[in-house]
């Protein structure tokens, strides 16, 4: 079994039975990091257990299935179909994980998903400005203030 296959098996197990401990176990013990939507900087492994505990507190029945994956040049893409009860109703959404492995553990992970449907369920009274603030982008979203030649509205 290859490192990719071992990682996918562990990741699918996490998807069936999500827990902070299983999540932490996906990462390289010394240098693993992950960047989820809304984070402004990668989260080190020592903080991922707390992150997942918070996530599962909001969506206790969260689970996912791997729908497709691809690997090339040390980068693994994994597309997952997620399910869970959000704001009192069942919701299904998808995420793509873009992962660099060290052995069979995540060295650098990044998740791509749209949080708008989830936030709309969790915080139905949230204003647009509040939602945008929660969407603090990864570095680089606002590249300029529009005063230069490329900045015309």
């Amino acid at each position: 079994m290859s490192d990719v296959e071992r990682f996918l098996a562990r990741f699918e197990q996490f998807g069936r039975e999500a827990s902070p401990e299983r999540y932490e176990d996906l990462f390289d013990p010394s240098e693993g990091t992950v960047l989820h939507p809304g984070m402004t900087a990668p989260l080190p492994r020592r903080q991922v257990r707390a992150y997942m505990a918070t996530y599962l507190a909001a969506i206790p029945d969260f689970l996912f299935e791997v729908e497709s994956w691809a690997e090339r040049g040390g980068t693994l893409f994994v597309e997952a179909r997620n399910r869970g009860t959000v704001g009192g109703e069942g919701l299904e959404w998808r995420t793509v994980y873009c992962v660099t492995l060290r052995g069979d553990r995540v060295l650098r992970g990044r998740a791509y998903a749209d949080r708008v449907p989830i936030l709309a369920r969790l915080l139905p009274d949230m204003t647009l400005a509040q939602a945008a603030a929660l969407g603090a982008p990864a570095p680089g979203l606002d590249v300029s203030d529009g005063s230069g030649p490329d900045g015309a509205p």
Partner: protein
Amino acid sequence: MTDPAEFVRRFATFWSAPEPERLSELLTPDVTLVQPLAPRTRGLAAAEASFRGLFALVPDLRASVDRWGAHGDAVFIEFRLRGTFAGRIREWPAVDRFTLRGDKASERVSYFDATALLLPLARRPLAVWRWWRSAPR
């Protein structure tokens, strides 16, 4: 079975100077497009209409490929979109997952977090409305 590297090359070429009329170089006539913030579209004409609306909103929108991978008929492309709207140059990362049929894609699902784009879009409600309306349902 098409060479996925060739598809990725065409994707990068398209996004270096994107024109809706050239989507047919990448997409099948019955293609399905799924993306945040905009309705799902089906068919090349609907895809072209949606992209026309998008480029009316962000005329200088471009993309550059960072990484990609392929397995079976699935191709994943991680890339960065960059363009000006609501008075600022904005850049955000995304992943597109394509399902290939022959040398073109019959499905494209786009993954990115639209949360941070909500406020800038809200500052251009008329333009957003036109974009939204541009995609036939």
